[in-house]
C-alpha cells in the first residue's frame, strides 16, 4: 500500500506548458548542437521536472556534449545531473562531484556563470545536508564574487542563500535582513521573477516572527511569481508557507487547501525531499486541527518516502509529527515507540554549525525523553485509572444494589415492625378488655359470693324475726328493716347483673323489668300492666346506662302506680336505628304548672342527662301521663 502511494506521489502527472514546448524543441532539433541547447533549456526547468526526467535529459545532454567533446557542455550537463542528485537527496555524491568540477572549472577558467551555478548548487547541498557553516561560507564567497562582477542576480541568490541559512538556524530576523537586502539589490523585476523563492523565504521568516500581514504580502507575491514562471517546486513551497501562515491565523480550511494543492504539485514534480517536507507539514496540520488519525497516516507516508530515499535529515521532523499525532489519538504505546526511534537518531545527528543549535537539539532530545517518560507514566496511570474506575464502577454498582436491597429489607422490616406493633397493640387492647372483663366478673363474683350471701342472709333473718311473733313484727322499724334488707339484696342483684356482662341488650332490660313488675304487681291487683315490644335492632347498652334505664323505668312505673290512680300501665319499647321507651298510664295526669319536682323526677332528669338521652313527660290527650325516654336527642 505504501509503495503504491510512494509511486503515486513520485509519478509526474503533468508537466508545465513550458516544459512541453521545450520537449518539442528537443524532438524537433535538427542537429546535436541544437538538440543540446534545447536539452539544456529543458533541464533549466529543473524545478518543475521530476528528478528522473531531469536525470534523463541531463544524461542525454551529457552524451551529446561528450560526443561533441565539449568539456564545458559536459560540465553544464553535469550541473543538471547534480541538480538531479540534489533533488534525490544524494548530497554527499553531489558535493564530491561538484567539488571536482569546481576545481577543474577554476583551473580551466570555466564560464563564470556555470561556476556560480555549480557553487550555488554546492551551497544548496550543504544546507540540505545540514552543513550550514560550509553553506554559509559558500554563499558568502558567491556574494563576494557576484559583487565583484556586479552580477546582481547572483547577489540576489547569494543573499537569499545566506538568509536561508539563517532561517535554518532559526535566526529569522537575521534572515529577513538578508532577504530584504536581496530585495533591494536590484530594481529589475525580471530578476526577481526568475527567483520567486526570495519572496517565499521572506514570507516564511515573517511568519516565524508572527508578522502575518507581511508574510501574506510576500507569499502572495511568491505564488504569483512562481505560477507565472511555471516554477512548480517553488510554487509548492510557497503554498506550504501560505498554509503555515493560515494555520497561525487559525484559518484551517484555507491552510488545508494550500497544503493539499502543494502536495498535488509535488506529486506532479516528484521531488521526495519536498514531498516529505510537505507531508510533514500536512501531518502537523492535522495534529493541530484535531484530526490525528489523518496526521498519523500522512506522517507514516512521509517516513516511508524518507526512508526509501535516505532523507535522514527529514526523519526527526517526520517522527516528531508522527509521535504528536499518535499522542493526540491516544496511541501512547506507538507514540513511545516513535519517540524511541527519534532518540536513536540523536546520535546520528549533530549540530555542526553552532553551539546553540547543538544545545537546542540536546534540549529537544531531553524534552522528548521527558515526554516519553511522561507518556509512559500516563499510560501506566491510564491503565491504573481503568482498573480504578472499573473497580469503582463495580463497587458503585454493588453499592447501588446493596442500597436497593437494604432499602427493600428496611421497608419489609418496617412493615413487619408496624404489623408487629399493630398486633401487639391489638393484643394489648384485647388483653385490657379481657382484664377489665375478668375484673368485672371477679367483682361480681365477690359480690355474689360474699356481699350477696350476707345480704340474703340478713333479709332472711329479718323475715324470720318477723315470723317469730314477738310482738314487734309489725313495728315500723321491723318493717323498715325488712324492706331495707330486701332493697339491699335487690340492688346488689342489679349491680351484679350489670357487672357480669360487657353490655346489656334492650330485651334483657325489658325482661328484667317484667320480672320486677310481676312481683310488684302483687301489691296492685287492680292495675293491669302490659308490655309492648317492637324491637328490630336489639340495641346494646353499657352496664351503667343499662342500670340507669332500668332505674328510670322503675321510677316511672312506681310513679304511675303510686300517684296516678291509674288502672292501666303500659311500657312500650321501640328500637330500630335508635331506641325509645315509653311508660304510659291512664291516670289523672298532671298539671305542668303545678308539678312538683320531687327526688324521683330529679333522678329521672339527672340519669337522662348523664346518659345523653332525651326525657319527655307529657299529658296524654285521653288522659294520663306518658313518659318518653329516647336515645335520640331532639
Amino acid at each position: 500500500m505504501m509503495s503504491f502511494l510512494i509511486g503515486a506521489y513520485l509519478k509526474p502527472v503533468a508537466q508545465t506548458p513550458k516544459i512541453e514546448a521545450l520537449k518539442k524543441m528537443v524532438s524537433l532539433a535538427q542537429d546535436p548542437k541544437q538538440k543540446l541547447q534545447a536539452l539544456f533549456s529543458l533541464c533549466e526547468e529543473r524545478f518543475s521536472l521530476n528528478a528522473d526526467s531531469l536525470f534523463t535529459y541531463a544524461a542525454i545532454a551529457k552524451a551529446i556534449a561528450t560526443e561533441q567533446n565539449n568539456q564545458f557542455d559536459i560540465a553544464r550537463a553535469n550541473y543538471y545531473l547534480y541538480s538531479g542528485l540534489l533533488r534525490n537527496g544524494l548530497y554527499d555524491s553531489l558535493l564530491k562531484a561538484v567539488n571536482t568540477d569546481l576545481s577543474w572549472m577554476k583551473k580551466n577558467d570555466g564560464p563564470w556563470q556555470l561556476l556560480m551555478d555549480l557553487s550555488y548548487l554546492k551551497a544548496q547541498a550543504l544546507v540540505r545536508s545540514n552543513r550550514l557553516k560550509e553553506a554559509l561560507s559558500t554563499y558568502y564567497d558567491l556574494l563576494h564574487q557576484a559583487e565583484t562582477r556586479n552580477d546582481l542576480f547572483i547577489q540576489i541568490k547569494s543573499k537569499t542563500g545566506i538568509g536561508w541559512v539563517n532561517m535554518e538556524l532559526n535566526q529569522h530576523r537575521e534572515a529577513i535582513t538578508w532577504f530584504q537586502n536581496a530585495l533591494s539589490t536590484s530594481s529589475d523585476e525580471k530578476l526577481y521573477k526568475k527567483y520567486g523563492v526570495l519572496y517565499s523565504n521572506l514570507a516564511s521568516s515573517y511568519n516565524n516572527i508572527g508578522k502575518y500581514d507581511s508574510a501574506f504580502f510576500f507569499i502572495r507575491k511568491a505564488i504569483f511569481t512562481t505560477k507565472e514562471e511555471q516554477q512548480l517546486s517553488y510554487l509548492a513551497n510557497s503554498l506550504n508557507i501560505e498554509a503555515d501562515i493560515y494555520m497561525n491565523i487559525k484559518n484551517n480550511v484555507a491552510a488545508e487547501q494550500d497544503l493539499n494543492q502543494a502536495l498535488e504539485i509535488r506529486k506532479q514534480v516528484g521531488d521526495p525531499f519536498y514531498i516529505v517536507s510537505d507531508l510533514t507539514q500536512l501531518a502537523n496540520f492535522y495534529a493541530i486541527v484535531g484530526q490525528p488519525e489523518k496526521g498519523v497516516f500522512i506522517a507514516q507516508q512521509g517516513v516511508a518516502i524518507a526512508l526509501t530515499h535516505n532523507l535522514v535529515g527529514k526523519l526527526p521532523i517526520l517522527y516528531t509529527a508522527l509521535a504528536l499525532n499518535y499522542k493526540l489519538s491516544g496511541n501512547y504505546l506507538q507514540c513511545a515507540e516513535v519517540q524511541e526511534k527519534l532518540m536513536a537518531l540523536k546520535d546520528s545527528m549533530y549540530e555542526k554549525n553552532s553551539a546553540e543549535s547543538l544545545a537546542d537539539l540536546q534540549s529537544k532530545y531531553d524534552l522528548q525523553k521527558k515526554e516519553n517518560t511522561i507518556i509512559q507514566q500516563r499510560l501506566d496511570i491510564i491503565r491504573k485509572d481503568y482498573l480504578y474506575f472499573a473497580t469503582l464502577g463495580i463497587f458503585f454498582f454493588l453499592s447501588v444494589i446493596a442500597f436497593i436491597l437494604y432499602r427493600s429489607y428496611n421497608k419489609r422490616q418496617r412493615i413487619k415492625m408496624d404489623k408487629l406493633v399493630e398486633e401487639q397493640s391489638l393484643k394489648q387492647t384485647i388483653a385490657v378488655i379481657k382484664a377489665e372483663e375478668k375484673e368485672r366478673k371477679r367483682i361480681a363474683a365477690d359480690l355474689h359470693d360474699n356481699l350477696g350471701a350476707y345480704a340474703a342472709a340478713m333479709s332472711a333473718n329479718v323475715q324470720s324475726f318477723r315470723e317469730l311473733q314477738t310482738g314487734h313484727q309489725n313495728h315500723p322499724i321491723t318493717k323498715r328493716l325488712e324492706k331495707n334488707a330486701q332493697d339491699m339484696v335487690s340492688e346488689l342483684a342489679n349491680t351484679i347483673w350489670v357487672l357480669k356482662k360487657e353490655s346489656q341488650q334492650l330485651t334483657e332490660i325489658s325482661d328484667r323489668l317484667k320480672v320486677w313488675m310481676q312481683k310488684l304487681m302483687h301489691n296492685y291487683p287492680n292495675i293491669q300492666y302490659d308490655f309492648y315490644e317492637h324491637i328490630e335492632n336489639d340495641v346494646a347498652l353499657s352496664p351503667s346506662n343499662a342500670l340507669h334505664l332500668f332505674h328510670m323505668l322503675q321510677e316511672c312505673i312506681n310513679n304511675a302506680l303510686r300517684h296516678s290512680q291509674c288502672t292501666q300501665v303500659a311500657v312500650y319499647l321501640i328500637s330500630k336505628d335508635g331506641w325509645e321507651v315509653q311508660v304510659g298510664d291512664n291516670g289523672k295526669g298532671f298539671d305542668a304548672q303545678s308539678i312538683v319536682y320531687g327526688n324521683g323526677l330529679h333522678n329521672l332528669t339527672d340519669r337522662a342527662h348523664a346518659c345523653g338521652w332525651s326525657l319527655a313527660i307529657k299529658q296524654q290527650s285521653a288522659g294520663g301521663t306518658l313518659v318518653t325516654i329516647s336515645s335520640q336527642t331532639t
Partner: protein
Amino acid sequence: MFAKNTPIKIALVEDNWVNRNTFFQKMGNNEGLHVSVEASNGHEFLEKMKGLPLHQLPQVVFMDIEMPGLDGIETTKLSKALYPDTHIIVLTIFEDNDIIFEAIRSGASGYLLKHETNTTLANAVTEVLELGGAPMSPAIARKTLQLLSTNTTSSTSPHASLGQFLSDREKEILKHTVNGWDAKRTAAQLDISVLTVRKHISNIYLKLHVNSKAQIISLAHKNKWFS
C-alpha cells in the same frame, strides 16, 4: 302446705356456707320439707346420692350454679341422667338468663333467686312436684322461642325437630310469657285453666331438656356414680 307425715325430701347443693345456713334457716321453719342431702359441690352431691337407697333420694334438689369442680350445670345433667325423677331447681343470686337457660336445657325444672322467701321456695317445690316445673320467666320464654326460630331454619341441628314438638298452644303461651303475663292472665286470655297453662309450661321444660345420654352415662361410669 305439706302433710306432716310425708315431708318432701329436698337437697341443697351450695358451696357458700352463708347461703347454706340461710337456706336451712328458711327451710327449717317448713315442716313439710326435709333436707335429706346437703353438699358443697356437685361431686359430693353425686357421691352422697349414690349411697342413698331409692326411697331416700331427694325429690327436689336446689342446685347452686356456680360451684368449684363440678358446677351446677354439669351436676344437673348427671343428676337427671342418673336420677330422672329428681327435680332440680337452680339457685342464683341474680338472673343470668344465659346460664339459667343452659341449666334448664341440662334438666333443671326452674330457677329461683337465693334471697327468695321461704314461702316462695316452698311453693316452688310444690309446683315442681305437682306441675313438673316452676313458672317460666319472660327471658327463658324468649330464649325458648329464639331457639325454636333458629331450629326451624336449620335442618341439621340436633334440635331440628324441636319446632315440631312445640304445639301452637305452647307457642302461644310462650309469647304471652315473653310479654310478662303470668299463668293466670294467660289462662284468662286463652280461656283455659291456670293448671293447663302450667302443664303446658312443664311440657315445654321437658322438651327443652337435651341430654346426650351416652356421654353422661360414660361420665357417670367413669366417676362410678352409678349405684
